[in-house]
């Protein structure tokens, strides 16, 4: 295995990191004046990396760098979605970045580094590269959360995220060291071959805790509402989408490929995490008036639904996780586009009551947001419904009836707050007019709405087929 072929296998990450290094130099010499150009360029590069990652899906699974880097259809598909969504988040960030004083060349580069970290952890075939990826993603995320450093809430969000994230990294690392100690290797395939021992289970549980934190699954979700509320909106739009699907898929990938033989050990833990996340997501959001906090709880709940797929195991769950998370992050990107569009008199507003009467002020945006909210809630004709159907089916196939029942109950409860948004948009009297919507935001919201309905509804079979490689063998 030569270096050249290793680099070819890892093409999407090589492209991203190489671009980021060059762009960093460009930015350092040209100053913040180049940030607009770099942002546009970064969007294009992320989209290219997404294409390269999707190309990996079609290729047979390969290992590079002595097994540290491993492609598989499951993770490469998720990586393609991560990069595409990252490009979308960067694309629509333009206007907000300019107005909120975040126009610095480091902003797109940190987004690139965060996506790069997500890609590395997705393609990890080894505990060490997994940790490196997680850390690269987390470090960039901490900085991005605190990017508005003069804003009290943003720096608070960054600090909270950093302290809790460091704790979670510690848990993950401690678990990984136990796993290494008891399995004798950090490679996923060799861990899978290691004989069963209590120490291994201990390490596994600690690693689950660390990864659950990164995916913001309950009871490791505490940071999510605060970080989402305090962080700058374009950054939160990114947090809620690209790293989210990456974290869930990494969670699944680690459990499936390294600990697949120990499924009876972790299935219950994951099922409990899923149930707790769904319930907390449903009940926690009921009293929120801030739309970003509400979406944070919604994302906790949705991670719970995706974890049903993980708890169902590799045979039944793989495809459902990808379908669910893909549909969810596409719709969420559009919803956060809606949050970015909520500006009045040049200031960001983020209360649900600020959406009052949107249907009369901006009918197109109102229709788009309605479709997206319904999709995230899982109302039948929209794509989100099929995602929920898939994870519930996976749960039933794996005999997790109680978990599916919890899922249905929390779906119904969560309708309560989704309908509050809809009611504010359609039923309330309009308040003062909102500012015009940015071009980038408008395009992203429309694109995400069109993908949610009707594209993914018509081609849902295509998506399911494209993601059901594991079931097909």
């Amino acid at each position, binding site marked *: 295995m030569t*270096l050249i072929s290793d680099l070819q296998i890892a093409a999407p990450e090589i492209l991203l990191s190489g671009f980021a*290094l060059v762009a960093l130099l460009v930015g350092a010499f040209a100053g913040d004046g180049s940030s607009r150009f770099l942002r546009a360029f970064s969007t294009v590069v992320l989209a290219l990396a997404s294409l390269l990652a999707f190309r990996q899906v079609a290729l047979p699974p390969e290992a590079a760098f*002595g097994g540290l880097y491993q492609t598989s259809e499951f993770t490469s598909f998720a990586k393609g979605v991560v990069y595409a969504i990252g490009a979308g988040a960067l694309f629509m960030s333009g206007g907000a970045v300019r107005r909120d004083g975040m126009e610095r060349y480091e902003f797109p580069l940190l987004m690139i580094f965060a996506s790069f970290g997500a890609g590395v952890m997705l393609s990890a075939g080894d505990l060490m590269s997994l940790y*490196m990826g997680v850390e690269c993603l987390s470090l*960039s995320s*901490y*900085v991005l959360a605190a*990017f508005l450093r003069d804003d009290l809430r943003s720096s608070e969000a960054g600090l909270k995220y950093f302290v809790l994230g460091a704790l979670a990294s510690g848990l993950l690392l401690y678990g990984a060291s136990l796993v290494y100690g008891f399995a004798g290797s950090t490679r996923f395939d060799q861990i899978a071959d290691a004989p069963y021992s209590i120490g291994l289970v201990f390490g596994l549980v600690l690693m689950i805790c660390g990864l659950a934190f990164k995916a913001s699954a309950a009871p490791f979700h505490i940071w999510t509402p605060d970080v989402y509320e305090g962080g700058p909106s374009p950054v939160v739009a990114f947090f809620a989408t690209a790293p989210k699907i990456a974290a869930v898929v990494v969670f699944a990938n680690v459990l499936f490929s390294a600990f697949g033989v120990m499924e009876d050990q972790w299935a219950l833990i994951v099922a409990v995490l899923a149930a707790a996340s769904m319930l907390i997501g449903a009940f926690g959001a009921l009293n929120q008036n801030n739309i970003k906090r509400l979406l944070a709880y919604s994302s906790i709940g949705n991670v719970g639904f995706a974890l049903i797929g993980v708890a169902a195991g590799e045979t039944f769950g793989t495809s459902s996780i990808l379908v669910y998370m893909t549909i969810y992050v596409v719709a969420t990107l559009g919803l956060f586009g809606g949050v970015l569009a909520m500006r009045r008199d040049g200031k960001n507003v983020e209360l649900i009551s600020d959406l009052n009467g949107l249907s009369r002020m901006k009918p197109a945006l109102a229709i788009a947001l309605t479709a997206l909210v319904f999709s995230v809630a899982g109302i039948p004709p929209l794509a989100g419904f099929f995602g929920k159907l898939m994870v519930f089916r996976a749960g039933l196939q794996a005999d997790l009836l109680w978990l599916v029942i919890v899922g249905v109950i929390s779906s119904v409860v969560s309708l309560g707050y989704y309908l509050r948004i809809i009611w504010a948009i359609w039923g309330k009297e309009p308040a003062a007019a909102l500012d015009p919507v940015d071009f980038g935001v408008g395009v992203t919201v429309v694109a995400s709405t069109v993908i949610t309905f009707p594209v993914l509804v018509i081609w849902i079979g295509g998506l399911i087929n494209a993601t059901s490689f594991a079931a097909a063998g």
Partner: protein
Amino acid sequence: MQLIAFYILSTVVLLSAFLVIAARNPVHSVLWLISAFFASSGLLVLIGAEFLAMLLVVVYVGAVAVLFLFVVMMLDVDFVELKQGFLNYLPAGALIALALLAEIGVVAAATAAREASGFDPSPGADTNAEALSRVLYTDNLMLFQLAGLILLVAMMGAIVLTLRKRPGVRRQNISEQTNRRREDAVQLKDVRPGQGI
């Protein structure tokens, strides 16, 4: 002998690590942290990883010194007050110094009496450093580069969050200074008495 040394050192590590979080005075916790690092480097020497042991002392104790400075700067620890109790603390300090010295002795004695075991601390090479670098720059090249990228991100983060461009900062412009002529700076005025300029 090695086993005894192992137990002594690990007890010290655990005890100091506990005291790091139990100590009320942040300066004390930092000192306990140094003790923990010191004892764990002794553990590394025991298994024959001298290079890592040295690295641990140099890097971490060095880093701790910096951390120490930060704690002192940020928490506004009163040094005068600390120094007042110097004589009271002297016996305790001497005891800990003795303990550190004893650790060195224990490690030295244990390494001298090392029994042959199946464990090779530097596989395929003469020294630790050589064995480490052989895997670090070949098998784990990707991890090495990734670690570099992560440090780069950390550096970018630190700059993003702290660097401020202040307007109106006067910087030295050497060419401007040397190009200055007498005519630019000095004006001769003929001031008549009692009239002003």
